């Protein structure tokens, strides 16, 4: 059932079995496992059914680090949350993502990929994609990259191709997809305009007794429950834990200082280099490749471990020239006019335009960028700013550092490995750009909007915030769902794993004795 806080009696004290804070992909996935159960569940949504500008303003915060993270527009306060912004790109973690690596401090998860497989399959069904397709090598050659660089698919290749699938808009927009199911639910209430302003602990400080909620009209209430789940994203989850500091000065679950720490995203280093192919330019017929999934290359696991690098994604793409509409849409025409003019090739532009009617043009020279996994670093963190939002909750102070040595080393090693693969096959060369050689390419802002870490999962409270079941250390009934619990960030888009892990948490909550 859908309700609004303004329709509830003033200062009401509501009581449920389970209270889920947030209705994005994580919150909805947890709740999906609780639908039609004997449990009485409430989902608290800060915004409305669709985004409302005054509630969106509660996202505002400050950036104090050298790298800029868009705190405002990358999140939606409404039913379905950021799924309304999501491009739908899905990929599973690899088994080695969960393993401890000697060269990567704080790496390793307390769970393995085997703990997630069944939930990955379930998440795939929710998203209308195929779990099996991720692991079927035959699909490699059906992709544009697979056709363009079919020689990479060889035994002992230095590179591996990771399959990504695109969930279509009908399946990925959780707000639209699950509206009717939750609105008609008998055991789950969704309460809108209900922003959590405080988690209230019991007198021993060992469990959450209630949460305080408020709207922008001045209405307030408290919600009591046996179990609480924070599912508000990797920026808001630590914000709520840190600002709930009336019992513990450092906030809840923060005895070791890990709440807010180890923020990670997937920075994309553009303009790394150019790939010069020795073969002729091609026009690849669009009937020959599929559009709903693609392959991205990275160093093989063996090469990554040998070179002690992070996971990454080699992005090999066609230069957006003056003839490409993308140049104008992305604003490149203003920011890179000199480069565009310098690289303008009339004949190539004509060929490109003609080719686009029937397929994809693959010139001899392609651009190279590298998308990066970020290591868990204490210096990348979310803390509380000195100013408050309209509800009196401290705003976010985001400190996102410049790229570290291991990140830069990964860019170099992966580019060199690509060059080696091209060289072994005698099909091309890689040339670094002058921007890369001068370090200019490392200056980035976040076009990806993946928010990861900040309430990390660990074996113990000394190095994390939640345990393997996503329960906050030291608090018996508080759980966290979403990418904030990821111990490491991998390179794949996080939402598919967020959904799988949240389904796992939902099952756990349904199974435990309340």
């Amino acid at each position: 059932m859908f309700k609004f806080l303004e329709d509830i009696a003033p200062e009401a004290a509501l009581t449920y079995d389970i209270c889920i804070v947030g209705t994005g992909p994580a919150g909805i996935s947890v709740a999906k496992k609780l639908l039609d159960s004997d449990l009485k569940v409430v989902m608290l949504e800060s915004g409305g059914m669709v985004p409302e500008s005054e509630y969106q303003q509660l996202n505002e915060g400050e950036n104090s680090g050298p790298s800029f993270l868009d705190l405002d527009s990358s999140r939606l306060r409404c039913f379905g949350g950021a799924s309304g912004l999501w491009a739908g790109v899905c990929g599973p973690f690899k088994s080695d993502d969960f393993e401890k690596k000697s060269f990567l401090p704080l790496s390793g998860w307390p769970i393995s990929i085997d703990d997630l497989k069944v939930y990955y399959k379930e998440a795939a069904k929710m998203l209308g994609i195929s779990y099996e397709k991720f692991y079927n090598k035959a699909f490699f050659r059906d992709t544009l990259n697979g056709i363009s660089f079919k020689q990479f698919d060889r035994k002992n290749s230095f590179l591996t191709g990771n399959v990504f699938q695109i969930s279509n808009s009908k399946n990925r927009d959780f707000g639209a997809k699950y509206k009717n199911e939750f609105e008609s639910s008998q055991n789950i209430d969704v309460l809108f305009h209900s922003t959590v302003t405080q988690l209230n602990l019991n007198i021993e400080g060992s469990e959450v007794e209630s949460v305080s909620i408020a709207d922008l009209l001045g209405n307030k209430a408290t919600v009591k429950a046996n179990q609480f789940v924070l599912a508000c994203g990797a920026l808001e989850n630590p914000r709520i834990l840190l600002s709930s500091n009336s019992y513990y000065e450092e906030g809840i679950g923060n005895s070791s200082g890990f709440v807010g720490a180890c923020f990670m995203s997937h920075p994309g280093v553009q303009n790394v280099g150019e790939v010069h192919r020795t073969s002729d330019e091609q026009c690849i017929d669009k009937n020959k490749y599929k559009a709903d999934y693609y392959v991205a290359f990275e160093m093989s696991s063996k090469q990554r471990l040998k070179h002690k690098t992070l996971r990454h994604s080699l992005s090999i793409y066609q230069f957006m020239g003056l003839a490409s509409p993308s140049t104008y849409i992305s604003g490149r025409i203003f920011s890179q006019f000199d480069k565009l003019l310098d690289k303008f090739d009339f004949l190539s532009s004509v060929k490109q335009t003609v080719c686009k009617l029937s397929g994809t043009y693959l010139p001899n020279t392609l651009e190279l960028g590298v998308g990066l996994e970020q290591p868990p670093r204490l210096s990348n963190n979310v803390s509380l700013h000195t100013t408050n939002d309209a509800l009196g909750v401290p705003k976010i102070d985001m400190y996102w550092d410049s790229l570290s040595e291991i990140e830069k080393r990964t860019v170099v090693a992966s580019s060199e490995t690509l060059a080696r693969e091209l060289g072994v096959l005698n099909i091309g060369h890689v040339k670094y750009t002058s921007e890369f050689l001068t370090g200019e390419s490392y200056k980035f802002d976040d076009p990806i909007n993946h928010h990861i870490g900040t309430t990390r999962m660990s074996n113990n409270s000394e190095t994390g915030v939640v345990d393997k079941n996503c329960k906050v250390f030291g608090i018996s009934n508080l759980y966290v769902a979403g990418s904030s619990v990821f111990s490491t960030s991998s390179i794949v888009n996080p939402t598919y794993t967020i959904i799988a892990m949240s389904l796992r948490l939902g099952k756990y909550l349904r199974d435990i004795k309340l």
Partner: protein
Amino acid sequence: MAISRRLFVSTGLLCVVGVWYVKGLPIFKGLPILSNNIESFFESYELNIPVEESSEAFGETEILEKKLVSLLSTEGMEETIIAINKMIQNDYQMGNIRSMSGWIVSEVEFGLLILRNRYV
């Protein structure tokens, strides 16, 4: 004028030995008789790095130069190109690479760029 068979054979042998000896002397390295071979190699062999972007290619290439000359004199052009390509691929396989004016090239390619700058 008639010459005896013995004189004909002796003179021929002497010429072959003479050329072979002269080619081996260090002071004759780089002389046209050798550089012509390397020049003709670069006429047949395409290095995909533009000439204007290989100005950073300088240094010692004695071993590669000897190898190239040896291959050209014993194997001929086609086999030399095949052998050089194998050496380059082996470099990439083993990770023997370096950066030159932004280009990631194998050690053998780098040596060839030096020779190209010197002889062509």
